[in-house]
């Protein structure tokens, strides 16, 4: 790219997506106009754990507009299994058969001409429950006398993983050992557009529109569940998808039931998920309770780390059950740690199924490391930034393979820490804090630092499809297997193609998210899209350009080395007037008489780009908070983030990801948490009770970047989608504890609400 003058790469190019999104012109799945559409509604268990004694649908069946009412008695669908790595008995019967296992389990299904009629009929379905004791606490779920969700399994544990589990305690005999139990509480992703589906049958074929991060994978899952040939099934996400954040990546039971009944009834059916459904149906995130010990020598060097955690998988375990392996991969963080023992057990409880949520297993590792380091710094009377610094992995340590098996590609961790401390004026912050403590002001300052490394394009997600084709009119069509839902891929990807070919961005069409257009791909998740699909388009464009240059050289009777990009096409260097346009090039490529011997027709190339491995973004955050020690209220004052995502393609889009990521990280630290009562009733199942911060709660963040290229792709890129979330939460968490640590407070679990902070202060006094 360095041979291109005035490259657009690295510039804040405004989004191509905006004009039609900002006018309401673009359609999301719920906006699609479909002739003869009927509506589906799910009747959900209001009890967390019970045997179903009867489900009476007789009243509902005759209600106005009702087309069909279904229960396990008259609808047979293969049980939905959310994760092939887990034993088959954990599958979810559709609809619930004999037993319900969480509030939200689908007991009956109504299809009616209007959504209102379906809801009316649902209210006339009478369910008798024979209550069973519910299990909510994940540690108690492991106990021998715990209520069991799946009798045929005999235990609530669904997955177990670990490192050095047979070895002894790596903290034994150390100079100093700090210990901590902390909760990375259960969160709801809450994309502002809920889930849904529109399934349209056409003979043997079926089209399913879903708001999805990965329509290609959903097609695979639906084809299996419906017993259809994949080629008869088109799954697509509309141009508008209203956010995802992880849980919109997979096929949901509701998708399967909607598609099944569309086929059975031979009618197009729409499922419009209501928010109160979304809060119990869309997979939750985090939900890990962690116990740890960290050992140090007399200089503060870490000598060992011991972790035992339990992850809540919800009632029907899915990907959430195995995210403990991501935590395991990243449990060493940015530090040189000689010995790590790690043990993670995933358990089923009478709660909503858990899955990926922005960070997905990695935030938990960082939160634990960064909190226990602050606990240790407090106990050893060391500066938290200094304690981190002396334990950081250094550039000369690379290549690094961690205890968890991660192969870090590149990292300048101390540089990021220094940049964040400098941007924060860390010394100044410490002085302000000391002055405030001296004055006895009820409002105390707290400073929190976190350093992190995370993994993007993990777990084999480093391979992606990309294709570039120059059309007869000189425009370009590019296709990718990723599936954007707010990440501005149309802009980023057309920047890559435009930069390589010299074709204006507006003449480039980016296709994604539709199995009719895209043969394969892994969707958008794990902050993987730019480094994988972006790299695929880079390589495909490069290949097309090389071929076009060869063709132009043949046409202009020049050497292809002398051919350069110019206004509207290719020309011989220094002779810009004699340009061969892209449409002329395509025409020549398809003309046997004009093409060099041995050259294949068409100016097109497609490939599966393989980055060989994941990439590892990193950074450092510093947070300053003010805590009112009389009320426990926390106000953020400043938040400084230095995030390194490798080489930056579009800084405007990167900044947007940092800001959004930080906001969700703040939300976990201070506001959000899904809660259940002891009977398994969700008490935060709408947006009145689940506290998503608004603009009035948040502040303006100070974001910047260091740039350390990844060697694993030609763009030098790493992911940025999840960094803000991973880096910010522990910095804020540490800052709040720091504000009240002089009062004797050692730890408070998130979210750090005024009530919890105030109570902790009272307890410490």
């Amino acid at each position: 790219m360095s041979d291109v003058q005035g490259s657009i790469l690295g510039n804040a190019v405004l989004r191509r997506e905006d004009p039609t999104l900002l006018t309401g012109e673009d359609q999301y799945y719920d906006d699609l106009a479909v002739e003869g559409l009927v509506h589906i509604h799910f009747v959900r268990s209001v009890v967390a754990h019970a045997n179903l004694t009867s489900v009476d649908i007789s009243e509902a069946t005759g209600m106005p507009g009702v087309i069909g009412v279904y229960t396990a008695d008259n609808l047979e669908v293969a049980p939905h299994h959310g994760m092939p790595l887990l034993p088959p008995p954990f599958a979810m019967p559709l609809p619930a058969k004999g037993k319900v296992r969480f509030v939200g389990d689908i007991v009956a299904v109504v299809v009616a001409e209007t959504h209102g009629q379906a809801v009316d009929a649902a209210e006339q379905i009478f369910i008798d429950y024979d209550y069973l004791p519910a299990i909510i606490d994940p540690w108690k779920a492991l106990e021998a006398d715990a209520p069991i969700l799946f009798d045929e399994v005999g235990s609530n544990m669904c997955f177990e993983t670990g490192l050095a589990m047979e070895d002894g305690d790596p903290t034994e005999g150390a100079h100093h050992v700090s210990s901590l139990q902390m909760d990375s509480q259960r969160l709801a992703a809450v994309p502002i557009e809920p889930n849904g589906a529109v399934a349209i049958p056409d003979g043997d074929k079926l089209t399913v529109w879903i708001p999805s991060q990965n329509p290609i994978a959903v097609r695979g899952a639906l084809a299996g569940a419906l017993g259809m040939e994949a080629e008869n099934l088109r799954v697509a996400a509309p141009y508008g998808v209203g956010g995802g954040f992880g849980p919109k990546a997979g096929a949901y039971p509701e998708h399967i039931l909607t598609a099944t009944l569309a086929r059975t009834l031979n009618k197009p059916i729409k499922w419009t998920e209501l928010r109160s459904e979304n809060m119990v149906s869309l997979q939750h995130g985090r939900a890990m309770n962690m116990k740890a010990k960290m050992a140090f020598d007399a200089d503060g060097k870490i000598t060992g780390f011991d972790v035992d955690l339990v992850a809540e998988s919800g009632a029907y375990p899915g990907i959430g059950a195995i995210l403990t392996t991501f935590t395991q991969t990243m449990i060493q963080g940015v530090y040189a740690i000689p010995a790590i023992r790690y043990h993670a057990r995933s358990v089923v409880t009478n709660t909503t199924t858990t899955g990926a949520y922005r960070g997905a297993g990695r935030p938990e590792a960082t939160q634990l490391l960064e909190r226990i380091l602050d606990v240790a710094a407090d106990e050893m009377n060391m500066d938290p930034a200094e304690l981190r610094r002396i334990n950081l992995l250094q550039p000369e340590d690379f290549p690094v393979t961690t205890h968890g098996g991660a192969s870090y590609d590149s990292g300048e961790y101390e540089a990021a820490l220094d940049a964040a401390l400098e941007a924060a004026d860390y010394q100044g912050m410490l002085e302000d804090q000391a002055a405030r403590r001296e004055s006895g002001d009820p409002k105390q300052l707290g400073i929190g630092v976190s350093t992190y490394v995370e993994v993007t394009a993990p777990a084999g997600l480093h391979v992606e499809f990309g294709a570039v084709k120059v059309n007869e009119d000189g425009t370009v069509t590019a296709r990718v297997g990723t599936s954007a839902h707010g990440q501005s891929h149309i802009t980023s990807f057309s920047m890559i193609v435009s930069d390589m070919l010299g074709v204006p961005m507006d003449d480039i069409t980016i296709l994604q998210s539709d199995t009719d257009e895209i043969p394969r791909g892994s969707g958008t998740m794990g902050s993987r899209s730019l480094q994988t699909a972006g790299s695929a388009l880079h390589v495909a464009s490069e290949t097309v350009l090389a071929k076009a240059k060869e063709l132009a050289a043949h046409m202009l009777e020049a050497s292809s080395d002398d051919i350069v990009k110019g206004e509207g096409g290719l020309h011989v260097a220094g002779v810009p007037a004699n340009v061969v346009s892209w449409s002329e090039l395509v025409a020549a490529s398809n003309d046997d008489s004009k093409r060099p011997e041995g050259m294949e027709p068409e100016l097109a190339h497609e490939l599966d780009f393989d980055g060989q491995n994941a990439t590892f973004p990193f950074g450092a955050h510093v947070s300053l908070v003010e805590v009112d020690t009389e009320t426990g209220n926390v106000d953020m004052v400043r938040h400084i983030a230095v995030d390194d995502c490798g080489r930056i393609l579009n800084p405007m889009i990167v900044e947007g990801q940092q800001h959004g990521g930080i906001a969700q990280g703040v939300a976990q630290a201070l506001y959000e948490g899904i809660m259940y009562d002891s009977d398994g009733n969700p008490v935060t199942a709408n947006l009145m009770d689940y506290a998503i911060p608004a603009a009035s709660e948040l502040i303006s963040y100070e974001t910047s970047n260091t740039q350390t290229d990844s060697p694993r792709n030609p763009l030098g890129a790493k992911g940025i989608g999840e960094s803000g979330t991973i880096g910010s939460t522990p910095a804020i968490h540490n800052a709040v504890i720091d504000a009240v640590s002089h009062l004797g407070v050692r730890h408070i679990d998130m979210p750090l609400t005024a009530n919890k902070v105030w109570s902790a202060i009272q307890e410490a006094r």
Partner: protein
Amino acid sequence: MSNTTQVGETASLACTINGAAFAVEVDPRRTLSDVIREDAGLTGTHLGCEHGVCGACTILVDGEPARSCLMLGVQANGHDITTIEGLANGDELHPIQQAMHESHGFQCAFCSPGFLMSTVALLAENPSPTRAEIREELSGNICRCTGYESIIKGVETAVELLAGNEPEQTGQTGQTGQTGQESAQ
């Protein structure tokens, strides 16, 4: 889009939507948001929660912001409704839309109709709000993607555009950065 059920009597609704007269017989229990989306076919108004918290469905009723999911359709009788479709002038974006574009205001943009309508109301009442006032006035709208900073910058940019000033650009269009020039090798 869907057939309206007649549970008992329907009621007459006559209002203006984006300056045009609109009349329909509606089931009295239907929400205004459903009437706008399904009867008027204006799907730019989005439903994020249907219990009045997220603000995605915000419209203007006689110039005042209102959550269309919390109003019944019949309550709009005789009123002047403005939705997101009423902002742009043909292909020309409304200055607030243009400002949001220039500030990378939104990502998935599902919440954007509500934010845009709230901003129209905010700037009509207070043409040069402070940053704190913007945060407070937009606190009835939830965005999950952006952390709000870019939206607030968008409002500030809109203030400049509406005042006829040249705002500071966050980004550039692809075309200005576009080049076909390549150095000789």
